[in-house]
């Protein structure tokens, strides 16, 4: 239906030119910065090894996915310079700037709650749990704009199966890093830090739910949730927690951060639904970045075939 198979489309055919231009510009900037540092013009400390080495690292052996859409991919520059990531500022252009010194390595993720074995997993151990796939997903923000992003990762269920939650586990909760030094936006109490999101276990086990560590063929940029985030294409963007340091399995429904901030506006489920208005915005239409006219928003963001059955019998007006 709406999800077309895209196995026969090569990444080079769909990735916009601007990405390649940007990549060259980045290389040129790194080269220039390096040259400047070499002749000692006081650039000390401005290029930290973590950012200059990690940003733009290519990921090898990426498999295609039948979940990918064939829609036009949003330019890399827009996806990296228009971010809702309050840990790095509440303005959309702030994360690109304020996440520059964020260190996505070394990184550990705590696995706890209702699991057989509580443990701390190194990010590189997690990345080896399954082969990386490219998933070109539509991504719909609750603010009625949308993008199409070629994410890289594998189904969240690959990790869940490996860490073995007990039969009591009904929900899974994700916690974002809380670090005032690295995330300057957390110095202001605009939200109840750290950022917490959650899913019902059957939602988390759905193969569409992506454990993501890259995009556009490369490592995830800091401002897009490095080094590890989730991507839930049938839900509003705020459900997709970034910079995850803890995955906890629970019996009770987790309380998610935006729900604490404004319960009448942001629910636990937050499924994309053109028929249920947000108090501030109509959700019937959306503006795809780069397009002038608005386009109609699709139920479950067009992923109904995969996920509608998860919510059969539920009142989606109440469970918004």
């Amino acid at each position: 239906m709406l999800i077309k198979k895209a196995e026969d489309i090569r990444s080079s055919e769909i990735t916009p030119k601007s990405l390649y231009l940007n990549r060259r510009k980045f290389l040129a900037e790194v080269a220039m910065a390096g040259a400047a540092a070499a002749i000692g013009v006081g650039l000390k400390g401005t290029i930290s090894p973590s950012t200059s080495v990690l940003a733009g690292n290519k990921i090898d052996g990426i498999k295609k996915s039948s979940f990918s859409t064939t829609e036009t991919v949003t330019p890399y520059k827009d996806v990296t310079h228009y971010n809702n990531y309050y840990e790095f500022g509440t303005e959309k252009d702030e994360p690109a700037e304020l996440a520059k010194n964020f260190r996505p390595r070394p990184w550990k993720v705590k696995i706890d709650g209702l699991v057989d074995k509580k443990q701390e997993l190194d990010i590189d151990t997690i990345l080896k749990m399954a082969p990386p796939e490219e998933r070109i997903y539509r991504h719909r923000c609750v603010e009625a704009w949308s993008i199409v992003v070629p994410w890289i990762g594998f189904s969240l269920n690959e990790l869940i199966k490996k860490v073995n939650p007990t039969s009591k586990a009904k929900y899974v909760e994700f916690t974002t890093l809380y670090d005032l030094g690295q995330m300057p936006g957390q110095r202001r109490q605009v939200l109840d830090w750290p950022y917490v999101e959650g899913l019902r276990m059957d939602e988390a086990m759905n193969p569409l739910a992506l454990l993501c560590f890259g995009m556009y063929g490369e490592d995830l940029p800091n401002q897009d949730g490095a080094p590890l985030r989730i991507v839930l294409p049938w839900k509003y963007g705020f459900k997709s927690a970034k910079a995850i340091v803890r995955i906890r399995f629970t019996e009770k429904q987790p309380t998610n951060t935006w729900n604490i901030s404004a319960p009448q506006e942001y629910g636990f489920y937050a499924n994309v639904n053109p028929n249920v208005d947000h108090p501030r915005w109509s959700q019937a239409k959306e503006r795809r970045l780069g397009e002038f006219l608005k386009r109609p928003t699709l139920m479950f963001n067009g992923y109904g075939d995969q996920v509608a059955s998860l919510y059969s019998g539920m009142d989606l007006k109440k469970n918004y």
Partner: protein
Amino acid sequence: MQRYFKPVVFLACLLPLGRLMWLGLHAGLGANPIEFITHSTGDWTLTLLLVTLSITPLRKLTRQYWLISFRRMLGLFAFFYGSLHLMTYVWLDKFFDVHEMLHDIAKRKFITAGMTAFTLMIPLALTSTKWSIRKLGKRWQTLHRLIYFSAAAGVIHYIWLVKADLKKPLEYAFALGMLLMYRIVAWVVARRAVPKHVGEAEVIAQ
């Protein structure tokens, strides 16, 4: 003095529009240009409303009474940017869908507040001519007190619009609060000074 200043102020008031046009022509409006234009014109409407409201305190406190000659122009520019702001909503956001707009105005309180703020500016812009001032006499001043309510509705529009970060709208609210406080204080002081001529005192407090 004002003869030379007026064109300068006029051109300065056109700078925000010029900047938008320049950025638009040079792909500088970011990933979501329509949102950028909406925010920018909204910001300048509020800023110019507050600048207009600061003319009276400024001229009284500095005794630079000639400043009054800029007030009408600044107020009209606030209306100008308010109109652009409304146009981006009507055209670029709603594409002239009247039904959808009415639904928005009724349902979303930040839109209700914004529409109120703009509507209150319309009679002020219409009666900004010398002829209207003469014709309306004392009623002109009473009518033009609507600017206090328009500015307040504009700030409320902004407060109700933001999701979590109230910093910027509260900065506007603080500035407006100070400007209104000046008027209250001036009114009380004038009333105490000349208790028998309350009518005159009100005029001074304007």
